[in-house]
């Protein structure tokens, strides 16, 4: 499965389908200047850092860190 789909799937369970797709699209363009389909493994840590403020707001810093660690493990496994 492509990296962006892996990340979307992981985020979908928290943010829902619409916002998971939108978050990956927005932050991949804003952070690494790529379309989601062009994301590589090297881009993942930058993208996860970009997602942190959004999750910090919605679930708090501790939970956001655990969610992002979990996604990092799954996507980079």
């Amino acid at each position, binding site marked *: 499965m492509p990296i962006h789909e892996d990340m979307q799937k992981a985020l979908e369970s928290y943010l829902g389908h*619409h916002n998971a797709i939108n978050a990956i699209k927005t932050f991949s363009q804003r952070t690494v200047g790529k379309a989601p389909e062009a994301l590589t493994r090297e881009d993942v840590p930058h993208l996860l850092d970009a997602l942190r403020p959004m999750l910090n707001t*919605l679930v708090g810093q501790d939970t956001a860190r*655990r969610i992002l660690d979990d996604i990092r493990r799954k996507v980079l496994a």
Partner: protein
Amino acid sequence: MRIGLWVGVPLLWAALLVLGDLWLFGTPAHPVFLRIEIELAKTLSAAGMFAAALSFRRGDYLRRAWILSAMCMVFLLLRDVFLIPWFEKLALPIDTIRGMLVVLANASLVWGTFLLARAWKVAGLELPGTRASRHLVFAAAVVWTLLIAGPAIVSNFQTLLRGDPEGLVGMASSIGDVAALILIAPLLFTALALRGGSLSLPWWLLTASMVGWLFYDATLEMLPYLGASPHAVRLTSEFFRALGCLFGMSAGLAQTRVVRAAGRPSG
């Protein structure tokens, strides 16, 4: 996560309130029953919201929002303590104290709801629908809320003009209601934006709670004009107050559950 539980408990509570009221109406136990129900509902609401606040750590955005929402109920509970006749015997400005507590409760409610309602913006979520459709829904919420709570602002202002300080408290309360209830629209849009994700549940329940409070105000303002008996007005308004309080509790507990579940590593 079983959504039925979060919705079912408030509905069951409200149904039991109606049954209890109809059973006890006209007996000396009726006012006691209602008073206990009201204070319990407020306490459960505050407890659920404090639980939500405690699921975040200091400095987290939603922690303050939940604390302020819970504090509204705490101030209202404190106001209710001063309704005990014993306090009338003390040389205290009881009316002023009660009035201040109502003002503080409304300030907490508005500030807390405002923080919750703009969480989507702080988080950078994209709301569903076009900008025009969102503005339309927001405008509808403003008109509907003003229709329901607006007359109370006017009548309280008239009371104040007659030199009665109770009017100031009533006005603060009505303005607080209007300000908080207008925010139903962004709460609903946040729930819709997160639909399908576990984080949407608290926002759906918060919206339900605010709708409960909206109907609480609506029944108090409108039913008397429709010829309803004082008992029917009281029972209907208490039904919606119970829903407002208990959905608030559910929202807080759902927020706690969601944050904890999200923090557990999967697979």
